[in-house]
C-alpha cells in the first residue's frame, strides 16, 4: 500500500522530470563533455583535446571584442534604459491622470519579438530610404545622416538604443511596483519636515528602493549580455565584427564553422562569467544592506 502510494505520487512529477532530464540535464552534461572535444557535429569521430578549446578562447580576439560589445550594450541598458524607466515610474507613481494608459503603452515594446523589433527599426534606420535619415534631411541636418547599421561607428549604439527602447518598459513596471510599496506617510512626513521633491527622492525613495535597483540591475545585466536575436535581425553581427556579441559568436562557431566543441566551451566561459557577475552583485548588495 505504502509503495503503491509513493509510486502514484511519483507519477505526478514523472512527465515534468522526464522532459526536464532529457531537454535540460542531458544537454547540460553534453556541454561540459563536448567542450573538451573537437567535433564538427556530424561525423561520429570526436577528437579529445582537453582544455585546448579554452586556451584558444583566451586568444580569440573576436570573442573578446564581442564580449566588450555586449558590455557596451549592457552599460547603455544599465544607465540610459534604467534611468528612463525609473524617471517614468516616478512620474506615474503619483496619482496621475491616465497612469494606466501609459503603463499599457510602455510595456508594448517588450511584448513584441526581437525579430519584429529588429526588422521594423532596420527599415527606419535604412541608409537610403529610412525614415530617420529622411527626417534629419528635412530638419536640415543632412551632415548627420549615415547608413546607421552599416557604419561601424554607429551600428552598435544604434542597436543598444533599440535594445533599451525594447526593454525600458519592463524596468518601468518593476520600478513602479517597487515605488508603490513605499508607504505614503513617509513622503508626507518628509514634506511636513520641509523636504523638497529632490530631497525626498534622495533620502526616502532611493534607500527604500535599493533592493529593487539591485534586482533590476542583475536582471538587466543577465538579459542584455545574452542579447542576440535582435542583432541577428538588425545587422547579423556586421559590419565586419562590429556588432558581434558572445551568443552570436557561439552560433557562428556552431552553424558557421561547424565547431561544436568550441561553441560549447564558449558557452561555458560565458555562463561562468555571467554567474560570477551576479554573485558579485548579490554579495555587494548584502554588504550594502549591512553597512
Amino acid at each position, binding site marked *: 500500500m505504502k509503495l503503491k502510494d509513493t509510486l502514484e505520487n511519483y507519477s505526478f512529477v514523472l512527465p515534468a522530470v522526464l522532459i526536464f532530464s*532529457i531537454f535540460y540535464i*542531458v544537454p547540460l552534461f553534453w*556541454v561540459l563533455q563536448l567542450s573538451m572535444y573537437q567535433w564538427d557535429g556530424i561525423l561520429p569521430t570526436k577528437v579529445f583535446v582537453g582544455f585546448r578549446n579554452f586556451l584558444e578562447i583566451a586568444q580569440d580576439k573576436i570573442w573578446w571584442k564581442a564580449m566588450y560589445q555586449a558590455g557596451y550594450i549592457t552599460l547603455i541598458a544599465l544607465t540610459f534604459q534604467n534611468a528612463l524607466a525609473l524617471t517614468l515610474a516616478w512620474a506615474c507613481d503619483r496619482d496621475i491622470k491616465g497612469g494606466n494608459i501609459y503603463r499599457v503603452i510602455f510595456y508594448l515594446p517588450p*511584448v513584441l519579438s526581437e525579430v519584429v523589433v529588429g*526588422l521594423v527599426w532596420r527599415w527606419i534606420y535604412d541608409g537610403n530610404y529610412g525614415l530617420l535619415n529622411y527626417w534629419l534631411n528635412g530638419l536640415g541636418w543632412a551632415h548627420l545622416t549615415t547608413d546607421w547599421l552599416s557604419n561601424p561607428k554607429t551600428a552598435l549604439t544604434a542597436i543598444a538604443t533599440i535594445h533599451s527602447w525594447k526593454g525600458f518598459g519592463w524596468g518601468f513596471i518593476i520600478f513602479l511596483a517597487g515605488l508603490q510599496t513605499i508607504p505614503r506617510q513617509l513622503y508626507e512626513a518628509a514634506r511636513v519636515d520641509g523636504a523638497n521633491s529632490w530631497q525626498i527622492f534622495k533620502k526616502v525613495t532611493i534607500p527604500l528602493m535599493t533592493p529593487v535597483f539591485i534586482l533590476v540591475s542583475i536582471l538587466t545585466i543577465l538579459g542584455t549580455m545574452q542579447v542576440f536575436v535582435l542583432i541577428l*535581425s538588425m545587422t547579423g553581427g556586421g559590419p565586419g565584427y562590429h556588432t558581434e556579441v*558572445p551568443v552570436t559568436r*557561439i552560433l557562428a562557431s556552431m552553424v558557421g564553422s561547424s565547431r561544436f566543441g568550441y561553441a560549447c566551451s564558449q558557452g561555458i566561459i560565458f*555562463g561562468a562569467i555571467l554567474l560570477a557577475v551576479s554573485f558579485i552583485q548579490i554579495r555587494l548588495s548584502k554588504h550594502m544592506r549591512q553597512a
Partner: protein
Amino acid sequence: MTDGTRYKIEGFLKNASVHLLLITVAVTCIFPLLWMIGSALKTQQTVFSDMSIIPRHPVWSNFYHAWTKGGFGMYFFNSVIYTVTVVFGIVIVSSLAAFAFSRLKFPGKNVLFYMFLAAMMIPLPGSFVPLYVLMTKLHLVNTRIGYILCMINVGLSFSIYLLKTFFDKMPPALEDAARIDGCSKLGIWWNVALPLARPAIAVIIIFNSLNVWNEYILATLIFSSKSLMPLQRGLMIFQGTHITEYPLLMAGITITVFPIILVYFLMQKHIIKGITAGAIVE
C-alpha cells in the same frame, strides 16, 4: 498674484511637464508600429518616396500577397499549432508536478524541486548547441514534436514554481473534504487544485503564449522545411530573400504582431501582474 494662485500655476506646470515627458515616450513606443502598418499599405513604388505615415491611397492587397505568396498564412498556422500545443502541455505537466511538490509526499521531493529552481537561476548561454545535438540524435530535427517538446521544457521551471506557491496556499480543509467525498489524488488535482489556481494558470498561459509565439532561435535550428516553420523564422527567411520588398515585409510583420497586440490589450492586467511576480522569483 496671491500665493494660492502661484501654487496652482506651479502645480499645473509641473503636471504638464510630467505629462509631456510621458506622452513623448509613449509616442516613441507606438510610432514604429504605426510606421510599420503605414509602410504595409504602400506599394513597392511609393514606399520609398511617400513618407507620410498614413498613405493617401492605402493598398490592402499587400496583406493578401504576404499571406499567400509570402507564405505567412502557412507560418501563421504553424505558430498557432506550436503555441496552443506547447502552452497546453506546459499547463498540464507543470500543474501535475507543482501539485505533487506542494501536496504529496515522496522521497527526493525537495531535491527535485530545487533542481527546477536552479535551472531558472543558472544562465546557460548557447544551450541551443547541445539541444540541437540532442534533437539530431533523437531524430527530432525538422519535426513538429521535437520543437514542441523543447519549448515545453523552456516554460516548465517557471510555471512549476508559480503554481507551487499557489497550491501551497490552498486550504487543507478543501483537500480533506474532497478526499472524504472519495476523490482520488488526480481528482483533487483536477477538481480542487486547478480551479483554485486559475489566476496563476492565466499568467502561465499568457506568458508562455507570448514566449512561444516570439521564439526564434530553436525554430531556426530545428526546422529546415518551410512548411513547418513558425512566423518569426518565416519573417527572417522572407527578409533574406525579398530584401527590398518593404511593403510585403511590413505586411508580414503586421500579421505576426497582430495577435500579440490583441492578446496584450485584452490581458494587460494579468501581464503586468505576471512580470512583477516573475521578477520576484528570479
